[in-house]
């Protein structure tokens, strides 16, 4: 798809002025204008609030009037007693989530795509995306019941296999339980996008592959995977923007004193310091610290993707 200098709309390769480009693209500009307005209005206008991370909060002077503290709150966070533990836990959990949680929906989509039996496929598809709608509160309640060592079915299965471990209690089990239950809940939903991509594959391709004698495994490798490759790439870049993101509610509900050394993350820490006193600036600083790192990873991944393939965010 290499673009040459000739375009359908005339011009013989000489440079266009910005105005001419604007005119040529005016329909596109009109199409994108509502989105630009919405994003500018609701996302960029309030962005002055970011400076709360650098200022004290002074109600009487408004959001922008407090004393300037520069990097004080950032330093406070980095120097704080729990910094290393929190960062280590956050990175561990989110990396594990990405490493395991990213391929799972892809595999599931490829799996479902192979199912011949239409009825079964529909049923399986529907069942598999349903857990996505279970609220976190109910999910953790479910985990507590099902994984309970004495009375839960999973606990029972493990005990009958000889493992005497309390899945809810140990520091080693916390991350696997968290990540696996995450996959259980969201894999089906996340696979929808891949299924949709797979559905756009021209059936003729499958037929010609069959004629050429390709086995199912090869078909998957050479037709299915390339069909969803752009989607995979983009979603992967986006997921790298979640390197320091763990979500709050689920971890908070799953936390107990036994898994605390590995389950205290940035979001739960911010919540705890927030409820006792209104630490607006400090939490804003921590939040900003968090997102800057996330954005950095996204940026780097995007640049790499651009070099390596044609697919990138920008």
């Amino acid at each position, binding site marked *: 798809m290499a673009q040459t200098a000739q375009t359908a709309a005339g011009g013989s390769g000489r440079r266009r002025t910005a105005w001419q480009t604007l005119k040529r693209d005016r329909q596109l500009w009109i199409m994108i204008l509502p989105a630009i307005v919405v994003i500018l209005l609701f996302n960029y206008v309030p962005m002055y609030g970011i400076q709360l991370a650098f200022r004290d909060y002074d*109600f009487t002077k408004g959001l922008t009037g407090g004393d300037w503290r520069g990097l004080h709150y950032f330093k406070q966070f980095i120097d*704080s007693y729990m910094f290393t533990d929190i960062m280590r836990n956050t990175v561990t959990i989110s990396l594990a989530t990405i490493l395991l949680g990213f391929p799972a929906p892809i595999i599931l989509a490829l799996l479902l795509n192979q199912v011949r039996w239409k009825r079964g496929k529909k049923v399986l598809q529907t069942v598999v995306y349903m857990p996505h709608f279970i609220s976190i509160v109910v999910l953790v309640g479910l985990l507590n019941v099902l994984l309970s060592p004495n009375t839960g079915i999973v606990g029972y299965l493990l005990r009958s296999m000889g493992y005497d471990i*309390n899945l809810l*209690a140990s520091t080693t089990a916390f991350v696997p339980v968290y990540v696996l239950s995450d996959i259980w809940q969201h894999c089906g939903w996340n696979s929808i996008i891949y299924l949709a991509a797979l559905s756009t594959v021209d059936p003729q391709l499958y037929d010609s592959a069959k004629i050429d004698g390709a086995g199912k495994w090869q078909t998957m490798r050479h037709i299915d995977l390339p069909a969803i490759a752009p989607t995979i790439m983009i979603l992967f870049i986006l997921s790298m923007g979640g390197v320091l993101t763990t979500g709050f509610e689920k971890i908070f509900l799953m936390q*107990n*004193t036994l898994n*605390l050394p590995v389950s205290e993350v940035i979001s739960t820490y911010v919540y705890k*310091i927030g409820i*006792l006193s*209104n630490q607006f600036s400090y939490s804003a600083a921590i939040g900003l610290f968090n997102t800057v790192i996330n954005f950095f990873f996204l940026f780097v991944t995007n640049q790499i993707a651009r070099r390596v393939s044609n697919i990138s965010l920008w």
Partner: protein
Amino acid sequence: MKRAWSLVLALLLAASALAACSGGKNGDGGGGSSNGASGGSDGGSGKRVKLTAIMTKHPLTKPFAEMEWLQAAEERAGVEIEWEEVTADWSQKKGALLSSGDIPDLIVGPNAITDADIAMFPGLFQDLRDLIESHGPNVKAMFEAKPETRVLATQTDGSIYGLPKYQRYWPATVTRQYINQQWLNNLGLKVPTTWDELYDVLVAFKEQDANGNGDPNDEIPMDFAPVGTGGFGFFHPTVLLGSTGITLTNASGQGYFMEDGVVKNFFVDERYKRFVQFLAKCYAAGLINPEVFTQDYTKFQSVARGEGNTAKVGFTWGWEVTDRFGNTLAPQYTSMAPLKETAASNVQVSWDYTYDALNYGVNMVVMSAKAKNKEAAMRFINELYDPIVSMQVLFGSIGPNIKDNGDGSYEVLPPADPAMDPGTWKWTSTWADNGPMYIADDLVLTLGTDMQSVGAQTEPLMPAINAIDKENDVLPTMFIKYTPEDNSTMALNNTNLMNLAMAKFSQWVTAGGIEQEWDSYVKEAERTGLPQNLEIIQRYVDEYKRSK
């Protein structure tokens, strides 16, 4: 494609039709839950002032429009209040509300607006001193009769923004200690009086089929409530520290207690070490519920209800016997006195002193500085503090919930539904403990069965509680107002300390190791900022005692 669009349109039309039919208003102020007539009063007596208010209520509480006493109180005060009833996520809502200055005339609820909020948002709330003078005779009466309430209400600069509550009837402690008397009888044992005796009794429970159902393995000798990551609370084994002479105040969740006027923290105290060692010994012998650190509160309560007539739990802590064990098994349990640490110990045993937290509350109602009709708002607040009205705030309206005996005395009635317990009935019918109130000491009120039984069950603990030196061994944190900076510092240090201490607590109890780790743990605790907090609290306590 066309079908999808027609589906969408059909849905939209249906929804709009529904919206139109039920008179959906979109925010022109008419949507509240009070009487449905919009625009102008409904031909009642004169013009009532319209006020807006938020209340943080218990999820069980019924809609305010159905509360008889509330409607009557509003009428007497000449106001009509549009209530927003919040049951969840108040802290998330609060931030945006306060920062934008967009608050209603009144905010009601137990510490819904904290002292930290008041300090952080100066000028947002109304200083009530003058209004109390002019329109708040009931509040003044409360301040006179109970000077502690004035202390609770007053900020460091003398201003009053939030009004407190006083509810008088609650016991001196939240946590009571229970043991299964029937199991003791089955095994021919006596109620233990020391830690060692308790240990032996628990072993017997475990090994000798105490509940007599033929299965020697289904007993749980000891169980306690789930311990949070933010510290201890009620129904936790920390009350055993009383055996070592430590007096807990309001459960001493973060470990702070007072001894002979000195502020200390038990997390770094030798006595706490012995306490953890005792629990570790019990856990290692299989005497504590193995799920004690992973079950949630629901499960904790469910387990205690056993199966039919067979009890599962031998020794535990709870609020009241039917609440803890259910109606069927309650008769099997008796409440116990505090244990001594050892038979030879002559330390005066103590317990958790929670009288203040149970009977007093801070900042139950605040007023917006921008309220248009402050006198009317104050009149309404004043109604709430009328002892007869307060009684109804707590237990429900006269009529369905309270009987007026006609001679100046009253009686709390049992629930209308005989299957319901009195506690649920209270919480369903009215604001209960979440409302501002002043229950006068001279009010003659016969309490419901639940309150009476709580009192009875607290009896075994009373000798220890009465022996507490309230001046020097009870930490008066409820009555102290910290500066925002000190509050902030302490909060940060406490978060650090709790992370360390609670994780260690559960690790030591379940896996042991306290011997080896104690010294480095104490050093670690210093690094969390604990000494700083102790120094801050001591300063404030000394100041408080000087000014009394």
